[in-house]
């Protein structure tokens, strides 16, 4: 049976997203760092005895949980099958929201997407496509994200002003269909001037379609 200190270590390491130094754990638990090392070793021994799928390891001067090496084949399948497929669609959506609505907070992205965006934002940040560009002045001082030069390079754009203009309307299903058809048929002809000036907005489609739906 785990002691209070052991349970606290489990809880903290479970929530942490980077290795936590023994000294820091010792401070929070009010025990000595060497005691923390003992406790972690005991926990690890119990996980081994129970044949758990994870372990507590010491990396980069701190402790963290990681998946057991035995189970790498499963984790790899998980990454390839689920994680990635989901990530690319979600990443595209998230990146689009940040690109067009920056600076924007994590919560605002989540509100637009309807689901939490934390993981995707972290991935995009790790890849260098987005970065923290400021803090919200309001209470909570939420981190605000924007896109980076790396992203522009990747998209082959000189500046954000070259992003394709967004329609001023929220398209209904029939408009989206028309939009997709229009893009497939001859995107360039349908938007003779739209590309040049994103600030003009509202002309993402042929004029006829837009007139009906813009409002």
């Amino acid at each position: 049976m785990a002691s209070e200190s052991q349970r606290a270590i489990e809880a903290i390491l479970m929530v942490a997203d980077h290795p936590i130094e023994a000294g820091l754990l010792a401070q929070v638990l009010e025990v000595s760092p060497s005691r923390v090392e003992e406790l972690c070793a005991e926990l690890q021994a119990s996980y081994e005895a129970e044949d758990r799928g994870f372990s507590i390891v010491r990396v980069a001067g701190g402790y963290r949980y990681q998946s057991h090496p035995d189970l790498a084949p499963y984790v790899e399948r998980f990454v390839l099958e689920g994680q990635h497929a989901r990530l690319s669609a979600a990443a595209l959506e998230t990146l689009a929201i940040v690109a067009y609505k920056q600076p924007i907070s994590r919560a605002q992205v989540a509100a637009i997407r309807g689901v939490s965006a934390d993981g995707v934002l972290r991935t995009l940040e790790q890849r260098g496509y987005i970065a923290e560009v400021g803090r919200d002045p309001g209470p909570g001082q939420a981190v605000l994200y924007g896109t980076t030069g790396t992203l522009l390079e990747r998209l082959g754009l000189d500046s954000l002003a070259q992003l394709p203009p967004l329609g001023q309307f929220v398209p209904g299903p029939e408009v989206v269909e028309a939009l997709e058809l229009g893009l497939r048929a001859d995107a360039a002809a349908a938007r003779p001037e739209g590309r040049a000036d994103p600030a003009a907005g509202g002309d993402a489609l042929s004029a006829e379609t837009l007139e009906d739906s813009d409002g």
Partner: protein
Amino acid sequence: MPYTVSTPVFEGPFDLLLQLITREQVDLWEVSLSAIVDGYVATLESIQASLDLETATEFLLIAAVLLELKTRRLLPGPDDVELDEELALWEERDLLLARLLECKTFKDAAGALTRMMDNAGRSYARTAGLEERFAGLAPDPLLGVTAERLRDALQLTLTPRPGPRVDLDHVAPVRVSVADAVAELAEELPRVGTITFGRLTAALGERLEVIVRFLAVLELCKQGRLEIDQAGNFADLHLRWIGGDGGAGPDVAVEEYAG
């Protein structure tokens, strides 16, 4: 005596009215419409400077209904009031009552949400993500992405989803109409003669159904077809049919109260 509300902790006219009434609830028989109305008007006066037009209108509308109710009580008799006018007043009052009930319902629901959040808030989620050794497995999520695809992704995100994408079983509204309940009672009560409100509603499962019955009883009383008697505070209501053979009676134009 008018109530002085030093700090407006209420959020709107219903909030204020709920507070004033429930403060009076200490003794049901001492509930004073006059005090409630005075308190309401006094509060309205003290906060009017800080109200925007829309909110002020809502406050005033309710104040008007309240004042009319108060006037009505102070008048010597109903003879000098047009029947239509009186019915309209009753309707206003029932509507106000229904809205107060709705407001109270969501206040209590909000309390439950708060408790759930407090409980859930004591646990923190693991969000560590992939270890380095797996990081190389996931290809660049932006492989082959163009600026146009980015734009299209946002357009699609902002496109209304087809209908609510949530499971709404639990919020299936219980629809019961006061008009239906009135018709039902007008059918049943002449046969029974006298009955207590408790027995009348004993078989009902939903609280809302009980409330609707209650409003229907008031409606019949107001039409002069039913007598209500109560022995003392919190005692059961005794209902006695005095409206003849029953049947449809006068047209009942009562609001449907949807929960």
